[in-house]
């Protein structure tokens, strides 16, 4: 809790153009956030580029962070994920996806226990557990590894036409379950 409070305080200082606060934020969060970017890009060079984009965005948008609407770590994670996804899209998502084991860790049953580190995580784990296996795997592969619909279809051996609908249905169920 205190770590979160201090992240939010650091973001407030970053909003006032406090470069030291940005560096401290980086020092506290870089290992976690680089992991988030690298899971999507699977290329350390590209992940470093995404982190650079993300920290520019963080320095510009810190004033938009609203502690009422979520935790600072989630806000930072969202910015890094979108920077990584933008880069992945720019590259036509041409990262290696022929690795048959890609995402095995993320979709393994025990991995969901890592999601459940706090109350929100436990609710999400339980709601994910209630989804059909393919809906759940599709959502995890998309979120953690940035897979497109086509890549999810290949990975899960599903027809492309149905993947989009499956993932939508999964999101809808999650929203209702978490409400």
């Amino acid at each position, binding site marked *: 809790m205190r770590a979160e409070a201090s992240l939010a305080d650091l973001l407030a200082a970053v909003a006032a153009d406090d470069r030291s606060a940005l560096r401290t934020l980086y020092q506290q969060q870089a290992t976690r956030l680089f992991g988030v970017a690298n899971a999507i890009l699977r290329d350390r060079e590209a992940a470093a580029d995404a982190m650079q984009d993300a920290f520019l965005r963080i320095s510009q948008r810190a004033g938009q962070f609203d502690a009422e609407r979520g935790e600072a770590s989630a806000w930072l994670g969202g910015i890094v994920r979108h920077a990584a996804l933008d880069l992945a899209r720019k590259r036509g998502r041409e990262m290696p996806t022929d690795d048959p084991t890609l995402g095995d860790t993320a979709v393994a049953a025990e991995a969901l226990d890592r999601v459940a580190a706090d109350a929100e995580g436990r609710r999400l784990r339980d709601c994910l557990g209630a989804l059909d296996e393919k809906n759940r795997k599709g959502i995890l592969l998309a979120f953690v590894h940035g897979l497109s619909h086509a890549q999810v279809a290949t990975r899960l051996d599903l027809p492309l036409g149905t993947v989009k609908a499956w993932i*939508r249905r999964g999101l809808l169920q999650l929203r209702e379950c978490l409400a």
Partner: protein
Amino acid sequence: MIPTDPQERDMLAGEYVLGTLDARAAAEVAAALPQDAALRAAVALWEARLAPLARLALPEAPPPDLWSRIEAALPGAGQGLPRRAAPFERRGSGSARRVSLWRGWALGASALAAGLAGFIVLRPAEPPRLMTVLLTQRDQPAWVVEADRSGALRLASINPQPVEANRVMQLWALPQGATAPTSLGLVPEGGRMTVTPSAIRAAPGMLIEITLEPPGGSPIGRPTGPVLFIGRLSAAGSS
């Protein structure tokens, strides 16, 4: 096109957060967000719902030079000059102000020596108006900062730790809405100081931070070193 049907819009927000939109659709959502408050709220909700999934990405140390790359890419990098006047110099005669600040610390130190050492716990008669406890990274209380009704800010170390060689600690205040932190001076050995800033007024929500700086303090009038401690003033007894 961003749909108008609420259900469709919410699904679009969810897919945007999930990352499955193609480049064009994602760019459309990103471009619509600044003007579309409802879409922004929907995206924020999805970010909050799915955020715990980020724990599935394995933490990994970035390349060691990444921060210097980021710093070089930030706006204003490489100029080596402050973009705003240093707080000490703001009022013209910098050295005079510096002297008066030093005198302020000396007064503060002697006042503390005269028996204020237990002011937090032992003398609740006139409770401090605003205060914050700055914690270490391990959540141990390290400093108490309090502002009294006269506007004076007092800093006291709870658990003094040595500073690394050739570095000093500098105290800063950042009022809410301010565009830059204001230096409150260097933290003296022993970790106790009192300062009455003229340019800012303590208020709830004001950030207090201590950074690590070169000898003599930040040369550019704004923090240059890592933030060692940070906290927000709030009404004493409210937390």
